[in-house]
């Protein structure tokens, strides 16, 4: 079945819903930029970021929390603004998406300069506005498929790196990672159920290593997506499984990456039959 405007509409609605659900979760956890109220930054080994840092915007945020609030307002309002244009003035919507892309780049570059925020996890916010810049349905289809391939690569390369860098062949790997990752948590909350679970795995290095390998196998399974779209729903389930275990064992809520599930869920729609520009 070919992709239609109706599919594009539902994709867009789902994307906006994903975004605002995550926004509420982040608000609740005090993770909006103005809630973070940063007082220092950390420089990473990223050439693009170094160029961005020379604008001095990250220093403005350190000096005034109003700058942080302003960035939050822009970042969190743009999906809604885009949706309004998409529904009311579809021909203007792609131009709004370009603006949205710029806002997201500035926000993510800035946000991830302060401790705890990894830029890699924020990649959906950097890339997805490009999808919404598509004026035609065919362009939308191709960019969506491109994002799907990127996500497959993201996961597959993570698995390959574990083989190349040798983590996959180090029997004490997972126990050592758990100790290193959770030392402060285990020491300050030794009787908490999650601490007991982690301690149990540390004391059973073989079981922990098997879990590490299950993670690698899940990541490597993404290779099938390069050859067929038939198993994309399986990949979605595997990803959700991965997320749950990442949260449970590593205490890493990788939910920022979940928008990438949408291209997998919509991948079974074929190339649009004809060009449709208008949205409503």
């Amino acid at each position, binding site marked *: 079945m070919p992709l239609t405007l109706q599919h594009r509409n539902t994709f867009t609605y789902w994307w906006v819903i994903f975004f605002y659900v995550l926004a509420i979760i982040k608000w609740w956890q005090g993770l909006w930029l103005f809630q973070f109220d940063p007082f220092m930054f950390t420089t990473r*080994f990223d050439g693009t970021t170094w160029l961005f840092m020379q604008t001095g915007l990250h220093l403005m945020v350190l000096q005034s929390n109003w700058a942080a609030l302003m960035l939050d307002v822009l970042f969190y309002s743009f999906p809604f603004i885009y949706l309004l244009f998409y529904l009311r003035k579809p021909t203007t919507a792609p131009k709004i998406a370009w603006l949205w892309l710029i806002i997201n780049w500035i926000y993510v570059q800035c946000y991830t300069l302060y401790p705890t925020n990894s830029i890699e996890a924020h990649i959906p916010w950097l890339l997805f506005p490009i999808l919404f810049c598509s004026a035609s349905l065919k362009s939308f289809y191709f960019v969506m498929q491109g994002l799907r391939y990127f996500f497959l690569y993201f996961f597959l390369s993570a698995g390959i790196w574990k083989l190349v860098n040798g983590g996959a062949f180090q029997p004490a790997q997972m126990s050592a990672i758990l100790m290193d990752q959770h030392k402060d948590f285990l020491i300050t909350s030794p009787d908490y159920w999650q601490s007991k679970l982690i301690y149990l795995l540390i004391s059973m290095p073989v079981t922990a290593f098997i879990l590490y390998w299950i993670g690698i196998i899940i990541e490597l399974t993404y290779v099938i997506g390069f050859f067929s779209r038939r198993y994309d729903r399986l990949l979605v389930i595997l990803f959700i499984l991965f997320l749950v275990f990442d949260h449970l064992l590593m205490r890493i809520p990788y939910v920022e990456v979940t928008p990438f599930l949408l291209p997998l869920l919509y991948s079974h729609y074929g190339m649009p039959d004809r060009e449709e520009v208008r949205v409503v």
Partner: protein
Amino acid sequence: MFLKEVYRHSKWMFAGMLFFSLGQLLVNYKRGMVFSPFFHYGMYSAKVEPRHSYLVNIVTVDGDTLSGADYTPPQWDKIQYTLQQVVASSCDSLFYQNQILRLYRKAGLPAPNSKYFVNFGNRQKRLETYKIWLAKQLGKKGASIKVSQNRYVYYFEKFVFQQKMDTLSGTNILCH
């Protein structure tokens, strides 16, 4: 083939996708510096061995030790990881000198001002700011916050306290 179909649809889009793919592959091949949005996703891939002992930062608020179980993982990271970065922030200048200046020179670019890359003030001042910041984050303005560092060993399936350190020490990726 997907890229062939993209080429037929739009040469600009094809060029964009090709550039993006090659950028990803290059960053993976070089394994060093990244250029967002080109990253390498090698998290937890390097060999890790259990260590002999572990240094852990302990935070107390009005005499009570903060416990990880009372916070969600991102909230706990905010408390602990920010502190780790404060402790390691003396490496800022080192990173600016050894990496940023070196690579800018190599690329033939003018040296950027250090104020964009090195945090203002010294580590002690940042630690004091951290305490004020944390009190505000926890909704306990004016609370007495103390930070210490202890050494622990993993012994008989538990972390066991070994030694209280005289000074805070720590490194991050910038120190290398």
